[in-house]
């Protein structure tokens, strides 16, 4: 596991909350020492977009119990920067669309949506 994924896992708060096998929600708090803030940016820490997307994929993996990879980002909107020590709720719902495994996800801080994604997931590793 990469240092990034370890850092994301260490930032989880509470238990995975799901309303079914295809949905999930979890709270995260990325502290000032989180590796993703290092160098992004000096004196102005902002949670990188790739961390936000990686966290969604990791959350879906945890709920499904299967190794998942990111096959595509169909769309992503980053609306508001996420700063250190903010409580971030990540919620997702998985569905099948034209045979593709689609994950609709939102990130919110203080009940305000700060990012929204539509990801395409696949089981297993990316082809080498």
């Amino acid at each position, binding site marked *: *596991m*990469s*240092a*990034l*994924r370890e*850092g994301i896992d260490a930032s989880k708060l509470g238990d995975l909350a799901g309303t079914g096998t295809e949905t999930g929600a979890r709270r995260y708090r990325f502290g000032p020492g989180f*590796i*993703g803030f*290092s*160098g*992004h*940016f*000096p004196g102005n820490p*902002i949670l*990188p*977009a*790739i961390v936000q*997307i*990686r966290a969604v*994929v990791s959350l879906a993996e945890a709920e499904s119990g299967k190794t998942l*990879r*990111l*096959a*595509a*980002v*169909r*769309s*992503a*909107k*980053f*609306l508001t*920067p996420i700063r250190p020590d903010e409580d971030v709720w990540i919620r997702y719902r998985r569905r099948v669309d034209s045979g593709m495994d689609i994950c609709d996800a939102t990130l919110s801080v203080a009940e305000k949506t700060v990012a929204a994604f539509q990801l395409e997931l696949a089981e297993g*590793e*990316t*082809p*080498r």
Partner: protein
Amino acid sequence: MLPISAERLIPHRAPMRLVDTLVSVTDGCAVAESVLPRSAMMADGEGKIDEVACMELIAQSYAAFRGYMDRMNGKPPGEGFLVGVRNLEITGTAYAGDRLLTSIRTVAAVGGFAVVEGAVTRGDETLATGTLTLWLVDPDAGGG
């Protein structure tokens, strides 16, 4: 002036800076080179680079292009933020030590926003392609 170290062009610093060198610039297009080490934060124990890194490579390559153009125009490198992604397809896996080239093309630049098409390649193999939207901060704008 090219090739030039990306560290001179973008605000990202280790370990989040993924682009090493801006290699070429022509007419709204640019190519940047990256060789991620085994110690990279996105590398697992086998040296496999997390697929999400491709998105950041495209974003940082554009940032390096913009930073270069700002320098050529006598301005300090400005700030920019990734605000959108469309149709990013990830078709291959990068590994630590791979020489990755990220090509970007400016599709549109309007009202402080830039739409950029990018591709990450390793040799003849395309690892990812996609379209990013970035918001470019106007350094002359008021406020704090």
